[in-house]
């Protein structure tokens, strides 16, 4: 039943908005629970109210953005991108750390007040900018050299983020980059080749495994036949990475080395850097099928679980709501991502399609790395869980993404059946 004057805006993507709303409400409930402890003076009790306030603001911003058009968003890509780069640079002058990442300079701080994390904005900005760049690419990309522009777009903020140093956000940039290149139709062989020096770097710790990887790569190069120079550069790059890795390892800061080693076996430092992950596993594992009850997780209440309001908030879900709660949360995320993929597939144009897929892939990397970290499937990199982790700017940015997706969805193809579900 269409109301007059609302014809254009009635096509709100209800499943998308619904899952995002459910996730946020779920998340705020968990922030509330994170504040319920037996340990005094942690200052977490009232956080959920602040999170709720940010949510209200985010909803307002969402409404504003959905009033706009994709065209406007496309137009704003450049200014936003430039702004985010400037802000990233500013963190080197006015930056400070927070929480588990206190050694990093991710927060823009003015007069002792933390204003926000420019890297959050940079993710959004880079996605928009990359989408613009790839959408303009008319011919099918056949070689690595043709990727120089998109790689520049990602490379600049990535380097700035890595210099903070914020490894976690760096991973998100790489995830966005590969996902969008894939969505833009870059052949998978090229993506493998692009990733190969990095893979070599990681595999270099075992000569045998690296050797096997190298053989596969050589076979791929011979089969795909890129430009000769490209192929040679690629092979050389892989060899160099294999050799350089141990040297690079020595250049890593001790806490970075420790994080990697502890990821391989948290028990090597069970009381130190492995403590967080072990306690998180204990919290989740002891939750069982139905959990210990909302707000009643003992690992959380008694402060065994670290950073339960931010990085390890999903451990609270696992401990208090059990596998059932975890299943619901993951199902909501999966539903959101599948719906976002659908939005990307049905977008009216290449730009919105790429933006939609890029935003989804950024969330996806966040969820995989953060949730995986709570069970030691991923190294502890300190990146937050969208819609759950306490943090105003992050919630705001997540909802900006929701808003953009809603807008893209509204302008997309086949909205009639989107309305009809």
């Amino acid at each position, binding site marked *: 039943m269409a109301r007059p004057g609302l014809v254009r805006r009635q096509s709100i993507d209800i499943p998308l908005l619904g899952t995002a709303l459910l996730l946020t409400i779920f998340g705020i409930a968990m922030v509330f629970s994170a504040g319920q402890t*037996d*340990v005094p003076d942690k200052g977490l009790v009232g956080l959920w109210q602040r999170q709720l306030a940010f949510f209200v603001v985010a909803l307002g911003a969402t409404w504003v953005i959905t009033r706009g058009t994709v065209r406007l968003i496309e137009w704003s890509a450049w200014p936003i991108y430039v702004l985010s780069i400037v802000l990233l640079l500013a963190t080197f002058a006015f930056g400070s750390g927070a929480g588990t990442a206190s050694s990093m300079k991710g927060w823009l701080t003015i007069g002792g007040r933390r204003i926000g994390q420019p890297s959050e904005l940079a993710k959004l900005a880079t996605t928009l900018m990359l989408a613009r760049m*790839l*959408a303009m*690419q008319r011919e*099918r990309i056949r070689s690595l050299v043709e990727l120089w522009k998109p790689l520049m777009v990602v490379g600049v903020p990535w380097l700035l983020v890595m210099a903070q140093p914020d490894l976690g956000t760096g991973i998100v940039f790489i995830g966005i980059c590969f996902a969008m290149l*894939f*969505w*833009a*139709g870059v052949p998978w062989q090229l993506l493998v080749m692009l990733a190969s020096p990095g893979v070599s770097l990681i595999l270099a710790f075992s000569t045998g495994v690296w050797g096997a990887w190298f053989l596969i790569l050589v076979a791929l190069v011979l089969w795909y036949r890129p430009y000769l120079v490209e192929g040679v550069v690629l092979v050389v790059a892989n060899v160099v990475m294999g050799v350089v890795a141990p040297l690079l390892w020595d250049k890593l800061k001790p806490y970075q080395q420790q994080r990697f080693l502890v990821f391989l076996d948290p028990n090597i430092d069970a009381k130190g850097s492995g403590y967080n992950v072990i*306690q998180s*596993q*204990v*919290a*989740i*594992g*002891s*939750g*069982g*099928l139905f959990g210990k009850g909302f707000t009643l997780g*003992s*690992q959380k*209440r*008694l*402060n*065994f679980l670290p950073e339960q309001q931010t990085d390890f908030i999903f451990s609270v879900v*696992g401990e208090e709501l*059990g*596998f059932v709660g*975890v*299943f619901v949360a*993951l199902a909501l*995320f*999966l539903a959101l*991502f*599948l719906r976002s*993929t*659908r939005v*990307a*597939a049905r977008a009216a*144009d*290449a730009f919105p*399609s*790429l933006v939609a*897929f890029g935003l989804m892939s950024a969330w*996806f990397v966040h969820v*995989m790395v953060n*949730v*995986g970290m709570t*069970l030691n*499937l991923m190294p502890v990199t300190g990146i937050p869980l969208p819609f759950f982790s306490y943090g105003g700017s992050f919630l705001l940015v997540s909802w900006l993404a929701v808003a953009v997706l809603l807008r893209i969805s509204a302008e997309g193809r086949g909205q009639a059946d989107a309305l009809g579900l």
Partner: protein
Amino acid sequence: MSYHPNSVRRRALVARGLLVAAFTLLGGAFFRAQVLRNEEFVLKSESNRLREVPLPGARGIIYDRNGQIIAENLPGYSVSLLSPSVDSLKSALRSLAQVVEIDSAQQALALRRFRAARTRPAVIFNDASFQVVSVLEERRAEFPGLIIQSAPKRYYPDGPAVAALVGYTGEVSDDDLSKERYAGYKAGQLVGRGGLEQQYEKALRAREGSRFVEVDARNRVVRDAGVRPEIQPEAPPPLRTTIDLDLQRYAHEYFGDSLRGAVVALEPQTGGVLALYSAPSYDINKFTGGIAPAFFKSLLDDPHRPMFNRALAGTYAPASTWKLATAVLGMEMGLVNIDTRMPQPCTGHYYYGRVFKCWDKKGHGDITLAQAIAKSCDVYFYQLGLRIGLTNLLAGGVKLGFGDRTSIDLPSERRPTWPASTAYFDRTYGARGWNKSVVLSLSIGQANNAQTPLSMARFYTALATDGKAATPHIVARAPERKQIIELKPAQLRDIQMALADVVSRGTAAGAQIQGLTIAGKTGTAQVNGQQDNAWFVGYAPADAPKIVVAIIIEEGLHGSVAAKVATKLMERYLKAKLTMTAVTND
């Protein structure tokens, strides 16, 4: 980008496949952790948050034969600290030391206790004073791992009177913990040391209970009660002994501070120990909850060695009290009867290779065995010993039980000295280093013969009854008796009559008690470089013995001194018994 719907649809399909696969993997990992490995993590989470706090129990109460308390438990408080590490315990101790007095020894002890059992709260004060408890209780919030709880402490109402038999309790040592005997003990628990406390450790041991407290990540106690059901400590059944606490107290009073020695009183028919006392004594209560080093040093440095249990471990030449053994052996061999005289009357000395003196220089003249016992004539027993012969005398001594412990139910009884055969002399002095004249000294209770008061008392239980020696025991049980004297009843009665004469008109005549016939034998043993030791071993009433008393007073000069103490003890015991019978007969 190629934005043809077909290629986009293909990529969307790939993307959806990857998304579903990734989430399936993630979900699978959670299923594994939360459902398959749930138990393991529940255990870890429980051991994270719960700390078991032992609830110390009370040791078994020890009663005397009349239901009076020898050992009991008083309410006390222990103070302990829960700590995650040595360092945090150290810093907690430092801040505690600013509030209450903890010396460095106590701190070191607390650390030792922690290292021995890390999951248990480290005990700082076993027995905290009321003042310490109230100060700490008031400032509890400042000490997160602090645990204050009731801990019964051992108390001996008659501490100094019972020190020789009851022992004390102390913390189990690291050495003990490695022994099989103490399997199942945990550092910080109490064990009996010495006396009944040690002997009956199994029966007396407190059954520890436990409760759980909930702690946070910094070992701060968050919830104290109701975390899990408590397991209450169980009190073991009391230990009932044959001791007569009144008599024990009386012995303590009588010995006072000036006399050194020991007394053992037995029930002749059962071997039940009525009293066992060693002087000088000390207050065993001062050993409870850790012995103050200064006090312990004063005990060790005391030249009178108060911690030396003379009743069990003091071996003394039995002197004339042993002459009864010579008499019994002579009669058993048919060599003498109670009225037999020796070929050579006593002239005050006897010649056998050299001169052997009688204690009375004037001599006793031509006397019978009965008179020799009453007057304790050495010359008579020299000749009897020679007739028995060294080999028979040694074998006889073994048969009468002088070579073995009595196997009383107390630790640290010392084995008496008695040569089992002549090989002993060959071993000790070399084959040519001794001669058979040693039999003369042995037959009057001298030479290589050293008996404990307990062992002499045991021998006299046989003399007082039908020739059966009763094994001394403190905890009530069925009597164990062994026939050691094989004489006709009439012969035994002759000896008993002679023993009664000792007190009525012999060497102990001064110790008579109005209305009580007492039988016994004095002994005066010479000790190199010291005054003579005084012995008396006897029983009363002479016609129906109810109590055997063996007493030694170091440097007591003469047996008659000991006899006076002994007869007083007998009187005390028997009169109390008479009054009690009278009361019950009313």
